[in-house]
Structures are given as C-alpha cells and as structure tokens.
C-alpha cells in the first residue's frame, strides 16, 4: 500500500507537507479531506488519527498527525537531501527552534487574519468588529517582523545558505493572509526577497500549485454546514 497523505490545501501545514513530498518525489496517494465540509470528523478519518486534524499520514499500519512530525518522518524515511533537516546538530537545532516557535509565533496569527478578514465575513456572513481585526493584524505584523529580524536576518534562508523545513513551514504560514487579500510583502523587502528565494528553491510551478486553493478567493461550502462552523470559529477567534 502506498503512503497516504490526508490533506486540505487550504491548510498551511498541509501545503508544507505537500510541497515537501512533491519536491522530493516521494510517492504518495493524495487523500483529500475537506475541512469546510467537516470531513475531519468522519468515521474513516477518525481511524487514521483521533487528533482529527490535517495533515495526517498513513504508512502501512503507522499513522501520524502534526505536520512537523510528518515532515521529520518523511525526511528520515526517504533520506531526503541533508539541507532539508541537517544531520549537523546545531543546524538541526536551529531549524527545530523555528519549528517550535512558529506554532504560536506565526501560525496562530496568520490563521486568525485569514478567518477574520475573509472567511468569517465573506463565507459565513459574520460581521467582524474592527478592533478584533486590527488586533489580529497587529499581532501578524509583529510576527512577520520577528521572522525577518530573528529568523531570516541577513541569511538567504532561515537555517543559512540552504532552504530547509523551516522555510517550507514558514512560507505556507506567511502566504495564508495573502489569501485573504493582505499583501504581507508590501513594505517588507527582506521578506519579499526571502519569499522569492524560497519560491525559486521549491520551483514556481509546485509553489503555485500548492497555493492555488488559498489564492482562489472565497471557497465554496455546503450551506447546511455553515451554522456549526460559524459557532466554532466565533468561539475560537472572536
């Protein structure tokens, strides 16, 4: 049985895993899970992971959730080029440092902006108070600044001269608010230059393919599922 990756490309961590697998020619079966349709709550998916989040992996009898864990597992199993997750302890630690920080450092904020600016108002018809949106934008702004100043600094990539898992995870998060119409790169030449390098290293075609869904505007969703999603998201972000 081929490796299965359960993905919804609206999700940042799914995009990171997708780009990594494709870039490294890792053979896998793409199993689409539509988050907006609540497919992560289905019985079948529950057998893969009780964490009920995407991305998820099934490799024979072995199932795994959490994109960071999946990326590390794939890098090891398929013996990808050293620069993705170097054997050198200090370089590896530097990448782990970013992969740890980013959960609350950027992921939270990019997601929030995407929901508050696009999905809540345009898809679910919920009015978002301006002060909440402003606060989210401010948090995102601080995060992007930290990424530039602390993680990229004057290096081509987060870990140094080469692209690594850190950049792959970072770029997907940074792109999320772009999907809601916010040009995060405006006024941030360092971040733009980094984005260009990451895009070139991944390959423009793969990068664009991975981001097609998020840049496609307001997604379509089953109206009957909206109410449940609405309450959940309001509780989470408002």
């Amino acid at each position, binding site marked *: 049985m081929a490796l299965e990756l359960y993905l919804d490309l609206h999700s940042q961590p799914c995009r990171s895993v997708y780009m990594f697998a494709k870039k490294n020619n890792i053979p896998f079966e793409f199993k689409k899970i539509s988050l907006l349709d609540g497919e992560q709550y289905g019985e079948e998916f529950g057998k893969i992971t*009780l*964490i009920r989040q995407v991305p998820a992996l099934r490799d024979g009898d*072995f199932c*795994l*959730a*959490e*994109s*960071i*864990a*999946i990326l*590390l*597992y794939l890098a*090891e*199993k398929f013996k990808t080029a050293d620069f993705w997750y170097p054997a050198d*302890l*200090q370089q*590896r*630690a*530097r990448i*782990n*440092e970013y*992969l*740890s*920080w980013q*959960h*609350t450092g950027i992921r*939270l904020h990019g997601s929030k902006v995407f929901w508050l600016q696009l999905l809540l108002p345009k898809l679910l018809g919920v009015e978002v108070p301006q002060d909440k949106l402003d606060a989210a934008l401010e948090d995102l702004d601080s995060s992007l600044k*930290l990424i530039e*100043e*602390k993680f990229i600094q004057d290096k081509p990539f987060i870990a140094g001269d080469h692209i690594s898992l850190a950049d792959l995870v970072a770029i997907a998060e940074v792109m999320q608010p772009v999907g809601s119409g916010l040009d995060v790169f405006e006024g941030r030449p360092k971040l733009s230059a980094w984005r260009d390098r990451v895009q070139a290293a991944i390959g423009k075609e793969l990068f664009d393919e991975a981001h097609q869904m998020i840049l496609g505007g307001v997604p379509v969703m089953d109206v009957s599922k909206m109410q449940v999603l609405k309450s959940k998201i309001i509780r989470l972000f408002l």
Partner: protein
Amino acid sequence: MAAGRQVEVYLDLMSQPCRAVHIFLSCAGIPHRVRTVALRKGENRTPEFTKLNPMQKVPVMVDSGFVLTESDAILKYLATRYNVPEHWYPRQPERRARVDEYTAWHHSNTRPHAAKVFMLEVLLPAQSGSQVDEGRLIRALSQLDDTLDKLETMFLRRQAFLCGDDITVADLLAICELMQPLGGGRDVLQGRPQLQRWRSRVQSAISDAFDRAHAILYAVRDRHKAKL
C-alpha cells in the same frame, strides 16, 4: 573563564518549559550550570539578557557558545548531543515520530490551556490586584477539560506514557504544564484517575528531580493558600 564543558541554562523555575529542561538535565545526568532569570523582577528584559535572547524569553541554553531557545528544540538537542538513554527521544523513526507529534500538539493544546488557568487564577489577580474573572476562568477550565480528555484518549490510551511504554521528553513538557495551576492550589488532575496514574509514573521515573524543579511552585501554592 571556567574550563571544561558545561551546558549553561538560563531558567526561571516558575516557567513550565524551564522546569522540563531542568528535570531533563538532572535525570539525564548532563553536567550543567543554572543561571536564574527572575521573570517577576524583569530580569529577562535587561540589556544583557536581551543580547543573549532578543525575544526576552526563557529557557535559553548555551553550549560552548551555541545559543538555543525553545524548550522542545533544547530538549531534543541535549538528548542527541549528550548520549542520554535512548528512551527520552527514541531513534527508531516511528517511536521518534510519536514524540515529535506530541511536542508539536503540545504548543496549541496542553501549554496554552493549562497556562491560561494559572494566569487567570494567580498571575493576573496578583499583577492587577483585582478579583479572578470567573467567567473567563470557567471557559478556560472547560477548554483545559477538553485537552485533558484528549490526553487520555489520544495519547495515554493503552500505554503507560504519552508516546509509548517509556517516559520521553514529551511527558516532561506535559507534566510541567499540568502542574502549573497548582500554584493557585488547583490540582487539574483531580477526578481523573488515568492521568493521575500517569503523573505518578512520571514522578517515579524522575524521582527527586521532580520536587526540586517544583519547589518554587510549591512555595507559591503555600503562600497563595495562606492568603485565602
């Protein structure tokens, strides 16, 4: 300047991830030197500390000039660098992946939800002199409750520790977070025998390193009790 290799760690034992690092260094027998950074006194905001870590957070590890932040990165680095017993961060890919899975999940679940309870019950009232916001506390407790359910069903189901049959760095991170609300006199594992048994197993595996790391938290609990 002292010769010989000794890892330096900048810690405040009121911080959950700092305690996890402290316990690990003791249990794994890694020679180290602790530099205390008292957050409540703003020692993380001094120019000296800021030079070391511009994010002004603890823990920070310095190993022969190599500076590293983020407790999970530190734990994984130490486990590999210092040839500790393998169970802490297994080398076998599937077992390692289980630890990576938990340490990732931890950030958005165990850590924020347990920390929030402590913040609402102890930190905020202490800082502002106001009463506990009961409404927010009830919501925070409910969220923590969900997380505890998940720990039981997703991680501890049919195994002694979070990631398998042996203790790993994941258990250290989790236990330190779940201990934090004790500072306000609240045992969040009350009424949860499965998690209590796990806690006992962790405490046995760690032995005195556990109480040593938590001494300050216990003192905060005792002062809090005395005030009530």
